[in-house]
Every structure is written in structure tokens, then in C-alpha cells.
């Protein structure tokens, strides 16, 4: 044949909408605070102040090391608009943890410490058969913050503190690609990567008197950059020009800054109360972009347009005996996610939170603390402007936690 006729068909398949979890602050750094609904930054003066109130750390009279763990169950459901099918996430438990340790002379004007904790993260697995599989199949995100901290007393009542934050973030994300094998199943993208970022955490703590105190802290944004992450595409051979099986990707994930204020005051000799409020500057999260190494692989740009968010939390602690402290608390968390930008990786909405907990002093040196938090993400019908995945989401989050403290 003299001339070859060609149909120029490029496999410009619909970009897989690959998205990171956000709106996913997990304030589970200390089971004491969790038990009071997340309040208590001004009330608790202990090793976890490294996170909650760096300024309070120097008011600690002793040294301590604590190890805390949680089992977070994130259970979401989705119902597409006009459909009778309800999709559920699979059972999955994520283990946010924290370790706090202090060093320094007792009853002096300074204290140092280190905290390792996971302020953001989550795991959600919708499976490969659900309605929104082209938006997300599963996501596991973790940000581990390492924060060395120092704190100084300026007066007996007023102290300041600050720490440097180094973040190691990791992501493991899967989503379906609309290319089809001979058996009719769709292609799959699996992205795995780690990245690092830096920031800081500073705060002041002021005791008006023995019982009334106020804490203010500011945790900076941490921009975490992922480079050379592994992008594995499982697609039919004919689509491998567009989706080379072993590709690389890069992305950038901004974790927002938070301003927190907490107050504490006694209600009676045995009942103490704490109230905390936060403003989370999520409005830095405008879009999420994935750049792929494959020349023909379409890069993805997902608008997020998060807004500022915030929370108000309150809790009380009851001291029935020398050995036992019992806590209860609750709160309301305003979402940063607007209705038009809800994605299935964090189908967020305003949340209500109830929690309870206890600390049992097993010996003068050892404390055992337990907590349980329940968050209800209120149902919301959302039509994503980018993906047009449209339907109602609701989520329940259960977070039992336990912590062990050794004082020295």
C-alpha cells in the first residue's frame, strides 16, 4: 500500500483523579486531652504539652516519658444521588501514636523535650467495586512529626516555649483508571511515596492564679514535598503508552497552620473544666497536583479550595480519689471542605465529637490513661465540581486510645 492512513488515537484517558486526604486532623496526641473532648491545652501540664502548649512545658515539676496509641476506625458511607445503592468503606484500623519525653532539672526555669506524633492521617478503603472508584479506591496517609522543644519560665506565672518540626509524610493511594481489560475490569493506579517538610510549634502559657490558666499556641504550616514516588499502573498493554507500568510521580501536600487558645478553671475542688478553640488555616490548600514522569501520562490537577476551619471543645475532669481521674468532653469541628469540593478520601463535613476517659495511677511512677472519642461527620449531599461524583456522604469515627506514662 502506497499510503498508510492513520487514525491518530491517543490514549488520553480521563485523568485518574488522585487525591490526598485532608481535613483529617486527628487530635489524638494525648489520651488525657482526648478524654476531655480535645480540650485541656491550658489544663494539662505534662509531657504532652510539647504538642498542645509548648509554653507550659517549663512549668512541669518532674520529668516523664509517655507512649500513647490509638485504634482509629473511620467508617464512611456513600449513596449516589438518585441511586438506591449504599457503598461502605471496609473495616480498617489506623494507629495514630505519640511518644513524648522531657529532660531537664526539676523545679527550675527551663525544660526541654521531644515529641513524636501523628497529627494528620487516616486510612480509607472503599474497594475497587464502588461507585466512586475512579475518584478513589483506597488511601493511607500518615504524617509523622518529630518535634524537639524547649520552654522557659519568664516569671512564675508566665512561660514560653517552642519547637522545630520535622515531618516525614507517607502516602499510599489507589484509584481505578477507565481503561478495561478483556474481562471487563478497570485499570488501577497505585501511588506510593514519602516526603518531608519542616515547620515549628510555639506557645505561651499564663497562670492567672493557682487554678485559672490560659494557653496560646501556634503550629505552623508544613509543606510536605513528595518526589520520585512510585506510580504503578496496572492497565492493558494497549494503554501502557499512556500509563507506563513503572512510573514516578511528584506532589506537594500543604498541612495547614493552627492557632489554638485554651483556658482552664475549676468548677469545684474535685471538678476542673477546660475549653479550647482552634482556627485551622486550611485555606492554603487550593489544589492538589500530581506530576507523572511518563511523557504521555496526563498530570492531574484537582481543585480543593479549602476554607479556614476551626473547632470549639470543652471537657471536665472529675477527681474521685487520689488514684483516679475521670473525664468527659465534647466539641464541634467546622469543616474546611466546601460542598462542591468533597472528595471520597476525606468525605468531610462539620463534625460533632463526644469523648470520655480516665487516668489510673498504678504507682507513684506509672500512670495508665485510657480514652475513647466518637466523631460523627454530619451527612451531606455533595456534587464534586471536578469529578461529578455526586451523592451523600456520612462518616462515623471511633477512636479508642491508651497511654502509659513513666514519671521520674
Amino acid at each position, binding site marked *: 500500500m502506497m*499510503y498508510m492512513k492513520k487514525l491518530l488515537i491517543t490514549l488520553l484517558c480521563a485523568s485518574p483523579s488522585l487525591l490526598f486526604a485532608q481535613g483529617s486532623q486527628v487530635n489524638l496526641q494525648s489520651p488525657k486531652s482526648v478524654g476531655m473532648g480535645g480540650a485541656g491545652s491550658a489544663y494539662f501540664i505534662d509531657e504532652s504539652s510539647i504538642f498542645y502548649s509548648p509554653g507550659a512545658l517549663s512549668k512541669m515539676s518532674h520529668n516523664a516519658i509517655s507512649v500513647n496509641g490509638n485504634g482509629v476506625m473511620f467508617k464512611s458511607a456513600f449513596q449516589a444521588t438518585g441511586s438506591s445503592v449504599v457503598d461502605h468503606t471496609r473495616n480498617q484500623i489506623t494507629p495514630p501514636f505519640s511518644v513524648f519525653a522531657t529532660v531537664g532539672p526539676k523545679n527550675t526555669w527551663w525544660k526541654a523535650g521531644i515529641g513524636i506524633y501523628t497529627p494528620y492521617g487516616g486510612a480509607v478503603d472503599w474497594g475497587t467495586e464502588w461507585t466512586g472508584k475512579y475518584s478513589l479506591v483506597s488511601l493511607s496517609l500518615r504524617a509523622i512529626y518529630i518535634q524537639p522543644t524547649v520552654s522557659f519560665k519568664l516569671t512564675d506565672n508566665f512561660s514560653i516555649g517552642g519547637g522545630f518540626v520535622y515531618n516525614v509524610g507517607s502516602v499510599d493511594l489507589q484509584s481505578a483508571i477507565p481503561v478495561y481489560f478483556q474481562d471487563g475490569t478497570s485499570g488501577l493506579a497505585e501511588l506510593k511515596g514519602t516526603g518531608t517538610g519542616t515547620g515549628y510549634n510555639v506557645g505561651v502559657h499564663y497562670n492567672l492564679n493557682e487554678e485559672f490558666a490560659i494557653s496560646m499556641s501556634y503550629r505552623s504550616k508544613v509543606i510536605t514535598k513528595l518526589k520520585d514516588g512510585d506510580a504503578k499502573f496496572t492497565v492493558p498493554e494497549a494503554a501502557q503508552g499512556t500509563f507506563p507500568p513503572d512510573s514516578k510521580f511528584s506532589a506537594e501536600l500543604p498541612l495547614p497552620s493552627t492557632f489554638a487558645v485554651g483556658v482552664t478553671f475549676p468548677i469545684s475542688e474535685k471538678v476542673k473544666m477546660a475549653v479550647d478553640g482552634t482556627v485551622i488555616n486550611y485555606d492554603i490548600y487550593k489544589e492538589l497536583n500530581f506530576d507523572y514522569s511518563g511523557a504521555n501520562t496526563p498530570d492531574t490537577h484537582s481543585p480543593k479550595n479549602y476554607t479556614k476551619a476551626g473547632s470549639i471543645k470543652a471537657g471536665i475532669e472529675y477527681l474521685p480519689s487520689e488514684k483516679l481521674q475521670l473525664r468527659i468532653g465534647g466539641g464541634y469541628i467546622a469543616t474546611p471542605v466546601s460542598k462542591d469540593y468533597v472528595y471520597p478520601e476525606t468525605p468531610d463535613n462539620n463534625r460533632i465529637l463526644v469523648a470520655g476517659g480516665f487516668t489510673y495511677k498504678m504507682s507513684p511512677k506509672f500512670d495508665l490513661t485510657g480514652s*475513647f472519642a466518637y466523631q460523627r461527620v454530619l451527612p451531606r449531599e455533595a456534587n464534586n465540581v471536578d469529578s461529578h461524583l455526586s451523592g451523600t456522604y456520612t462518616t462515623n469515627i471511633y477512636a479508642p486510645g491508651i497511654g502509659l506514662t513513666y514519671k521520674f
Partner: protein
Amino acid sequence: MKRRNLYIGVALAILSITACKPTLDEFTPSAGTKADFSKYIAIGNSLSAGFADGGLYLEGQKVAFPLLIAEQLQKVGGGEFKSPFFSEEQSNGSGYIRLKALVNGQPVTEQVADKLAYRSATPKLLTKYTDPINNLGVPGMRMDMAFAPGIGTAAGNMYFERLLPDGTPPTMNYFTYSTSQNHTFFTFSLGNNDVLGYATNGAVNEGPTTSLTSTALFNTLLNNYVTTLTAKGQKGVLATIPDVTSVPYFTTVTRQVLLAAVNAASTTKVTDIYIATKTGPRAATDQDFFVLPFSSAGLLGVPNANKIPYGLHPLNPVEDKYVLDTKEAIEVVARVNDFNKTIKSVAASKGLAVADVNAFLTSVKNGIRIDGLAVSAKYITGNGFSLDGIHLTPIGNALMANVFIEAINKTYGAQVPRLNISDFRGVKLP
């Protein structure tokens, strides 16, 4: 002791909440009171039958949009819905094409020739299926043909012949067959082939399957049909006819694509493709539609006896049947619009729902996003149309079923749940 109680308490708490899923109940299915879905029949052509990839085969039959509609109607108490499925042993039915490879982005297809359902090679006849059925879709059926005798015979349409028991009189036409099923509800989508047969043949009338039905005849026949279908007060849905120029069969092979291919293989720059029209040969414009099979016909550039390359010179133009030229396209589109006006006015006069398939496929032409998935009329990668460029993929059928469901809900006050598009596939790749 106390501590152990605490541990037990925590363990019990974890166990009890593991089973505690959030619930949603945002949609209450309901049949409404205006229509009776106990016996639904689908009257139509290849689209209704589940024809795809240039053939009728079991996998396509199983996602035919009437069956998908019926499965959703069953969620509001609708009756059983039978389709004339090919057997597993003959699952490839009439045979169909599949994608063998993409060579430099160009699709190479092959004919699937095993597990066929032919009981006779000449004339081509399929294994009979004469049990009662609800999906009466017959590939190739036209409005004018539905009233013609002989179509159900061995000399007629093999897909209709397949459904009729031995000994059926040759006078049995599709109209009589489809209106004597004691239905309570129907979907009606005939008329595509009354323009499509003509258009896909480049507006060359070569017989009853490639003629263009007149608007007057279409009006009369549709009125007859719908009057009979609603004689006992039955309700149903009439589908509009898609603008045939919105399908990949006409939009994939463009003048630009052909010129690019010619110039890629030529040292001298070629600027024009010549086409035969009813008023003589002329250079093609971007408003002329080349049919999809032309790309694999292997004709362009091939010299004739006088050494004139095919399609590149007025003395050896691309044959009329491969091109729906501007004037012909205008004629065809105008006829589609006329038919659709008739369909809408008949539906209005009988109080029936209209599934505006034309409006929907026009939106698909520009690309839509639903359930997080992008679907367009782009050949292969658009995932809406099968490899023949006219008929739908399973994704396309699900979208089509939703258009009907939406019409049913709107007109008959029902709450029939829609299909989730992610449950269906697009074009299979090698």
C-alpha cells in the same frame, strides 16, 4: 481486679463498634401510581437488542439498556423481564469485532468467529429463540419495515426470523408481533435506522435498508403504532432519535486525519481529499463526514488503472457511499429533527414520557462526567461507544437506561433508582 475490668470494658467497646456502620437512606424507591410496570416490553432496533461491536452477542444482550431499565423497575415491583439470550455455547451470536492491537495509535480490529449462533450459512439464519420475551429489540428494524410483510422470513431480517416459531405465516410483521404481547408498559425506540441506514451508506439508497423514510410516512406509522400500544391505557416511553452525526462512526475519520495520514507517507504535500457527490466530484471540507469503515477499507491513495491515486484527484474521488457530505448531512439532520418533533408531539398527545436520547447523546459528544468518570463520543477512548462507532458500550447502555429512568420518574411520579455507571465497562483493550 479493677484494672482487668477496665481492659475487658475497652475490649468490649472495640468489639461492639466494629459492627457499627453509618447508614444512609436518601432514596426511597417507589413505583408511583401512574404506570403499571408488571409487564414491560421494549420495542426497538439494535440499540434495544444490546447490539455492540458490530454484532449481537450474549455479553451485549446482558447489558442492553431495556434489561438495565427492567432490573431497576424490579426494585419498585416491576415484573420479570426475559431477553432472547444466546446460549453459552453460542455466546458470540452473530460474531462481533474486537480490538486486536493499537499500532501507532491506530486500532486494529479482528472478527470474533468462534461460538457463533448460525444454524444456516446461506441464507444466514440464527438459532431460534421462541420462548416468551420482553426485550423485543431487533437489530436493523425500521419504522417502515415494522409494517412490511416477509421481514420475519428466511429472506428477511435474521434477528426477527430468529424470534418467530416455525410455521409463522410470512405476513406476520414486527408491528403485529410487538403489539400482541399483553404488555402493561413499553419503551419504544424505532426510527434510527430510517435515517441511519441511509446516512451510514453515505446517503446512497441501495435498497430497503438504506432508504430514507419520509416524514409523512413516519408520522402515520408512529401514530398507528402508539395508538395500538396504548389501546388499553398502557403507559410507556418514546425515545427521540439521535443526531446521527454525533456518533464516532461519522466523527472519527475527518478530512484532517486523512490528510495527516497521507502527508505522513508522502514526499509531496497533499492539501485536498476529493470526494464524489451527487453533483459531481469536489474537494472535501471539514463539514463532510467520512464513515468509520473507510479508515480500514485500505483505499485512500491506491492508484487506479490510470495511475490516479484514490481520493486524491477529482478523476478518482472517494466514493459517495463512504462520505456523508455537507448537503447530505443537512438533509439527514433535518429529517432527524422532523422525526423528533413527531415523536414529542405523539408522546404529548398520549401523555407518554419522552427519553430525549438525542439531547443526551449531543451532550456526550462534548464529553460528560458522571460518578467520577469521564465519558465522551471519542472513538475507543471515550468509552461511550463500542468498536462499531454507532452502538453503545455497557457504560453507554447504563447512561441510556438512566435517561429512560429519569423520564419515567418525571412523567409517572415514580422513584426508580438510577444505575451507578461505575458498575459498567467501556471499550476492552488488548
